[in-house]
């Protein structure tokens, strides 16, 4: 909760202004019945018109003041609440930017989106409610009680009875219902999960003709939610009548006693009306307080979910005195062990020890899950090793400034993504200052120029969200061009030409050899043809190095390599091209 409130920052002023102005508004409101008492006693009862005019005018003036205070308080409340939610979103987004890959893996994108929209909206509404009401209610309570005491100390006992009655009744209802509400929320999550399941698996449902079965399942879950909600809200239904009992109790007892006091001469008729007003506002503020409690506890779940992201610490941090230059493109793995879940005992990479010279072209091949992607992800420090070390240019990657390292080690990820914007915009992710010529040159090397040229607006063509208006192969080529623009010392292609036909694949590799001979190139591929021309080929199996040699030697000696090679020769190779 504190973490969330810290995000108020520049809106603290608005918050306090709102609270202060609300307090002023409440004071005005509290004084109103007091003035009405004067109007009645000294004006009406005494048939004194000037008093009525004077205090009537005072009342109108106070109402205007109260209106101004209230309006300003409302304005500040709106600005504070919307500011808080904007800051929260920004803080979460900023924190996500510091996340490492393993942090990102932990939260799902829909989960993060819900946190940044629905949850924050909940908190925003609760916050606004709290700063407007949480001040008003107790102040009202205290002032009203004080005014009652001033008017008639004898009667305050009655109010005390009413207040104690309400506190006990509403309090116990709250305690019980909040407990039930917590279950209700859990059921809600279950219900949503089941909707989600049906939305994503609708083809399975339809293929097996299970619509009725799913309907029944959903009805049951929905009925359970209904039963619990009715139980919780059924209890809440006591709130209003309890409040009425308290009010009526006060009206009757006050009527009885006040009649005697007035006749006895210790109270006036005006006191009677203001007493009634104060009773109402006293009890109303109790109701408001109970509402605030409900609001806060309902938004508690959202607060918790938001804090989870805010508290998530990036597990990769820059060293204190980082190395700012990368000497060359040599890469060394020194007995590296790595697992995605630290200490799970299931290593994704075990005892990797390999040394790559600057400017070499290395092919990496192996089955799914053999650790190819994990291996290259360590080079640009997308994850940290568990044991051993990875060095680029002779320096441990953990000693570099991350930005420097990643600018020199350019990865084309397996699951690659283009963003909405023009082709040039996307290319300039690689280098914001790249000229159009440089972009075109990079696209030529990546064999992307040919299809971009054919597009109606060429390099200014807009890419739709997720690159949905270009084909898989075109997307991959654009991603390669984007990575080339970094002019890196190490270029890693993680299965990045799988959707590109063999001929283009070959000409991209030829362009690499010609244009960036000094860059170390690591190519992960499924096709032997993509890697056979490499200086050396790394064969991975189950997270271990099985062999590291030239195509010719591997073909002679390595069983796995032979198997893959033969299978692709014989045609049990992949017919389809993974998207």
């Amino acid at each position: 909760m504190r973490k969330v409130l810290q995000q108020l920052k520049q809106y603290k002023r608005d918050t306090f202004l709102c609270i202060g102005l609300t307090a002023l508004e409440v004071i005005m409101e509290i004084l109103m019945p007091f003035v009405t008492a004067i109007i009645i006693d000294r004006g009406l009862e005494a048939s004194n018109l000037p008093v009525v005019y004077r205090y009537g005018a005072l009342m109108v003036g106070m109402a205007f003041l109260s209106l101004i205070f209230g309006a300003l308080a409302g304005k500040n409340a709106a600005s504070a609440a919307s500011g808080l939610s904007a800051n929260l979103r920004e803080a979460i987004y900023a924190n996500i930017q510091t996340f490492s890959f393993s942090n990102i893996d932990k939260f799902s994108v829909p989960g993060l989106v819900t946190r940044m929209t629905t949850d924050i909206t909940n908190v925003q509404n609760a916050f606004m409610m709290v700063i407007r009401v949480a001040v008003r209610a107790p102040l009202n309570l205290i002032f009203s009680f004080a005014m009652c005491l001033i008017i008639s100390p004898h009667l305050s006992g009655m109010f005390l009875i009413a207040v104690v009655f309400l506190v006990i009744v509403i309090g116990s209802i709250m305690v019980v219902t909040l407990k039930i509400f917590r279950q209700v929320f859990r059921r809600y999550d279950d219900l949503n999960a089941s909707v989600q399941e049906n939305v994503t698996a609708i083809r399975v449902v339809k293929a097996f003709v299970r619509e009725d079965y799913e309907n029944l399942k959903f009805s049951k879950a929905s009925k359970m939610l209904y039963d619990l909600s009715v139980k919780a809200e059924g209890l809440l239904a006591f709130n209003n009548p309890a409040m009425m009992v308290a009010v009526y109790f006060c009206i009757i007892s006050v009527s009885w006693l006040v009649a005697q006091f007035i006749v006895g001469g210790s109270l006036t008729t005006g006191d009677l009306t203001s007493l009634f007003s104060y009773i109402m506002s006293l009890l109303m503020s109790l109701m408001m307080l109970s509402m605030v409690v409900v609001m806060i506890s309902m938004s508690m779940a959202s607060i918790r979910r938001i804090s989870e992201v805010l508290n998530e610490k990036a597990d990769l941090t820059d060293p204190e005195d980082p190395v700012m230059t990368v000497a060359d493109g040599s890469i060394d793995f020194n007995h590296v062990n790595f697992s995605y879940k630290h200490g799970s005992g299931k290593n994704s990479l075990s005892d990797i020890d390999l040394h790559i010279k600057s400017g070499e072209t290395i092919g990496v091949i192996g089955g799914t899950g053999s650790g190819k992607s994990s291996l290259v992800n360590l080079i640009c420090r997308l994850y940290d090793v568990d044991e051993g070390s990875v060095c680029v240019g002779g320096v441990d990657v953990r000693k570099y400034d991350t930005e420097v390292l990643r600018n020199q080690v350019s990865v084309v990820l397996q699951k690659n993504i283009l963003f909405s914007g023009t082709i040039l915009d996307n290319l300039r992710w690689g280098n914001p200052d790249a000229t159009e010529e440089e972009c075109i040159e990079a696209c030529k090397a990546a064999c992307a120029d040919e299809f971009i040229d054919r597009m109606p607006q060429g390099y200014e063509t807009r890419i739709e969200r997720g690159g949905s208006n270009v084909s898989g192969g075109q997307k991959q080529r654009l991603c390669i061009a984007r990575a080339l623009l970094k002019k890196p010392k190490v270029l890693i292609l993680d299965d990045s030409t799988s959707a590109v036909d063999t001929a283009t694949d070959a000409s991209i590799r030829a362009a690499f050899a010609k244009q960036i001979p000094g860059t170390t190139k690591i190519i992960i591929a499924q096709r032997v043809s993509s890697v056979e021309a490499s200086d050396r080929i790394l064969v991975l199996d189950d997270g271990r190095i099985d062999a590291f040699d030239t195509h010719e030697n591997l073909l002679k000696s390595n069983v796995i390599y032979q198997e893959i090679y033969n299978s692709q020769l014989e045609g049990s190779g992949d017919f389809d091209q993974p998207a």
Partner: protein
Amino acid sequence: MSDKMNEKKSESRGNTAMKLISRVIRYMLHYYKYLFLLVIVCILINAVTTVVGATFPQTLVDDYITPMLASGSRDFSGLAADLVRLACIMAVGVVAAFAYNRIMVNVSQGTMLHLRDDLFRRMESLPIKYFDTHAHGDIMSVYTNDVDTLRQLLSQSIPQIINSVITMAATLVTMIVLNPALTVISILTAVVMLLVTSNFSKLSGRYYIRQQIDLGAVDGFIEEMLDGQKVVKVFCHEEAAMKDFHEVNERLRNSTNKANRYANLLMPINANVGWISYALVAIVGAILGINGLAGVTIGTVVTFVGLNKSFTNPITQVSQQINFVVNAAAGAQRVFDLMDQEPEVDDGYVELVNAKEDENGNLTESPVRTDLWAWKHPHKAEGTVTYRKLEGGVVLDDVDFGYTDDKIVLHNISLYAEPGQKIAFVGATGAGKTTITNLINRFYDIADGKIRYDGININKIKKPDLRRSLGMVLQDTHLFTGTVMDNIRYGKLDATDEECIEAAKLANADGFIRRLPDGYNTMLTGDGANLSQGQRQLLAIARAAVADPPALILDEATSSIDTRTEKLVQAGMDALMKGRTTFVIAHRLSTVKNSDCIMVMEQGRIIERGTHDDLIAAKGKYYQLYTGNFAD
């Protein structure tokens, strides 16, 4: 000119909002007509008792205090009797209040229950196309965000508004009876308040709409950027992303601020106009009372200021509800949008029934489950019914298909599958392989041509029966929350445990299931997140196996399976295929080698067809792909 246009627009928006709200209310009344009537009666009783309570000070002052003060009498017995009577009336009021609060819980929660169930039922009946064209997050948010806005409307706003209106009416009547002159002031105030409320809620409503749009923009931005967050990291693009985010976020903050600012103004304005009206009534009342005009007594004024408060308070309260109502209208729009979607049409009349075959080979319908299935084909013209054995023969005759009318993705597809044959489709992603299989089970309807199943046009077969006769293992495996056993049983709900285990054995899944912590009783959650892709695939095969359909569609997974599991999956599929008409979408050529016919697809057309040997001999595309021998 443009102002007028805007006004018209917002007016029509106001109208649709009213229409939506009234539709919600009609929906509620459909289920809870009498209960809701009871609620209104209780509210009425409660309002009357409230007014009685509010007028009591007049009785107190005029009938007791003033005479007593004048006479100096100390006899309170009359007052005591009156108070007891009042207490009884109030008790009735409390009971009525409790009754309507409590009944309303059932009404509102019950309406929500029906609404959710109806929504879900409608959703299940929608064609696949709907799910293709709507973001899943959007559909989800109907259940979470939108239905929730209606809860507020039903459980709070509607009773509150009814209560307020009735209280106002009752108070108004009392006021008129008490003193028509003073009533005018109250009515004038009420008009001012109503004007303020309607104007400000229009203003804030405009910004609420903008807020929803901006919220959508933020939502979209986050989704796109977080989807590509790994790319953002690799390119050290964090700062630029922050800057872009700041822009959309700032826009949202702005519209939220404005929407709430105007909404927040309502309460202070209305409450204080209420006080001003209080002062006016007091002043005018005093003038009249002191001058003895219009029959005003001090007691009248004292009561009247109180009544005036109960008359204006409801307006303040209703104005607090306006936001919820506006919000609910937006929610209702989306809820009804989903509710009004056209369900999948099914004009089929041919049914799948259990059958018996007598010694002459004639089929008759059987009431009990037999191993024999037949198509029951009523002929309306002749009024006869014929039975035809379910065998699993599928014919596609010159089929064209497009997901949208203007873009045909499958052209002139013809194929003939004899019962028991294995037909394979090969080709690159996007060539249309999966689409063909989706036409056979009528996930989509064809644009042109005919598909026949056992000689019957599939458009004549009831969709559920058609789909029941076709087993499917889909490319993306989806599992449901529940035990492993539950998931296998999904294929045939009345399958015994033994049948399920048998199916798992057939699919090669038994081995890994037994190694799971609770074996067949292991709970699966989150789409089987605790299983590997290969294991999920095996379960999906077992699920299809237990259904034991005469025809099968197997869409192999493209990736993420290691070579060892792949062999297991392959073996499972092979076992399942035995003796069934099978359509295989294959990615590894070794799978399709033994097919009766292989269709090579490219861009929505079958470019080559034949057995493996035929195709190799033809030296076409298949040959190239198979030998890896590309003509450069």
